[in-house]
């Protein structure tokens, strides 16, 4: 009981971090599932949101709202750009696509940091979000609680879209069997492009929301990309539900893990990622 009590704050922090990662990584896992594309520019889409926040947030709610809209829209455009540029490379395999997205990530990162100035930028959220509240004898930062609420709402809405709408059904079907979708009269490539745009928008949104957690800066695109890849792999490529569980687990490792086992936590993520890939490559039907 004492252990739980003492670590409640980092644990809640971990949930917030995890949900943020989930919103950021959901698009990546669906892009992988629908198009089998390793999108190395995904972290850059997140930073598009972060830089929008840095530019537009002025401590008012109106500024935050403006940043949310602008960041989401800009990252969606980025996703559309990615869809347009990777489409001609379909037949060329994973290597060409990975290299292209990596090149675009470098270009995008450079343009963003030269437009906004190098170094980690401060983001001014409304004062109400910067405080903390006393709950059950602990002080929790308001931003993290708000992040949990918003990200959970987004995850729920996303789940509804995936399960209850025609577009969502098409996405799920494309993950399972692209050929069947094309038999139904929809080009799986269009589904994939749609996923890249929507996933980009989500990543941009996460970039604004999560600016106080992983803010805009030269290293943040790589951080988000690598953490998202871990989430995508641990959650099972293309699985949204799996990504949610994996994201929260990764969030806990990054917060609670660092408190409980500071020597081990940094290795845990990539070891788990490699382990998950190994286990999955042994499943039947994929003989090595």
């Amino acid at each position, binding site marked *: 009981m004492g252990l739980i009590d003492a670590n409640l704050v980092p644990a809640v922090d971990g949930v917030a971090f995890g949900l943020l990662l989930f919103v950021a990584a959901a698009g990546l896992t669906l892009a992988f599932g629908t198009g089998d594309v390793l999108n190395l520019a995904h972290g850059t889409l997140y930073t598009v949101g972060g830089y929008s926040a840095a530019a537009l947030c002025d401590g008012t709610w109106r500024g935050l709202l403006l940043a949310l809209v602008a960041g989401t829209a800009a990252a969606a455009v980025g996703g559309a750009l990615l869809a347009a540029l990777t489409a001609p490379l379909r037949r060329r395999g*994973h290597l060409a696509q*990975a*290299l292209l997205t990596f090149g675009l990530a470098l270009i995008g990162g450079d343009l963003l940091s030269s437009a906004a100035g190098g170094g980690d930028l401060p983001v001014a959220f409304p004062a109400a979000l910067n405080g903390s509240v006393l709950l059950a004898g602990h002080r929790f930062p308001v931003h993290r609680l708000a992040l949990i609420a918003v990200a959970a709402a987004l995850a729920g809405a996303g789940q509804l879209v995936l399960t209850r709408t025609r577009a969502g059904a098409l996405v799920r079907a494309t993950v399972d069997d692209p050929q069947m979708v094309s038999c139904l009269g929809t080009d799986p490539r269009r589904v994939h492009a749609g996923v890249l745009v929507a996933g980009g928008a989500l990543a941009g949104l996460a970039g604004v929301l999560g600016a106080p957690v992983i803010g805009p800066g030269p290293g943040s695109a790589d951080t988000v990309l690598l953490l998202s890849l871990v989430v995508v792999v641990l959650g099972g490529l293309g699985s949204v539900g799996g990504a949610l569980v994996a994201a929260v687990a990764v969030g806990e490792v990054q917060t609670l893990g660092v408190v409980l086992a500071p020597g081990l936590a940094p290795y845990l993520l990539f070891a788990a990622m490699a382990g998950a*890939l190994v286990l999955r490559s042994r499943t039947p039907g994929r003989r090595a």
Partner: protein
Amino acid sequence: MRAQLLTGLALTALALFAVPAVLADGTLAMLAPAAALGLPAVGVSVLTGRAGLPTLGQGAPFAVGAYATALLARAGLTTGPAQLVAAALAGALFALATGPVVVRARGATALMITLALGELVATAAGRWTSVTGGTDGLAGIPPVQLWWGGSPLTDDTALYRYLVVVTALALGVTVLVLGSPLGLLLAGSRDHEERMRAAGHRVGGHLLAAYIGAGALAGLGGALLVTEQSYVSPADVGFGTSSLVLLAAVLGGIGSPLGALAGTVLVVVVRDQLAAHWPGHGPLLLGALFVAAVYLLPDGITSIRLRRP
């Protein structure tokens, strides 16, 4: 085959004597990073181009070789050949240990497994402070000696020639191996794995051998990095390095070791020289190079025609 080796010898001689005569010492030092990254890129051309296993994690054996060399040198082992053997062995052992995991995977899964391994090693380099010096890295590494009891190589031209000779030797061995029937085995496994299995070939074993060879080459590159900059830090060995050497191998027309080396020179020149004229925009230029490589050199990426031995 023979023509290839002769061309290689001629190029080596050119690099050894003509280039230092034309370029000033300062410029030579700027070419040096190409020597360190060149051998890992050659390894990628073997592993990805010839054996068909894509990798985003050659920074890992590169790191293992570099840190092994740095630690040995600080412990007093400054003889070049001994350092090189140790670094190549370290890289090969790393590949042997991680190989069984990697050679099971194909395509995007292989990219991600190697990426995860690379990040694990980079994390270790940054965190295992007692051995690696953490994010500060290992500095104060004494200069290398050509042979036991020789004088330390301190002047730029001598150092440059050392890098050229080591790179040329490693490249020569690689070309010889790929030109032998072993190279055909790897190409066959890349082209049609099931066919090779159905004939009785141990495809996993061939891939493991290629992965170990690429690891040894990356380890050698790590040794050259330490020799050249007398310093190593986690910034030298991360994801960025892995993707750079992959790009270099692709630029050179993947599957061609000499091309991979040329690709590395191009990448390093763009990153260090062009960026010097346009400060702060190295990543932009590199990114443009990535995009150009994918769109303008499709043959470099997909279709490889092999010479018969």
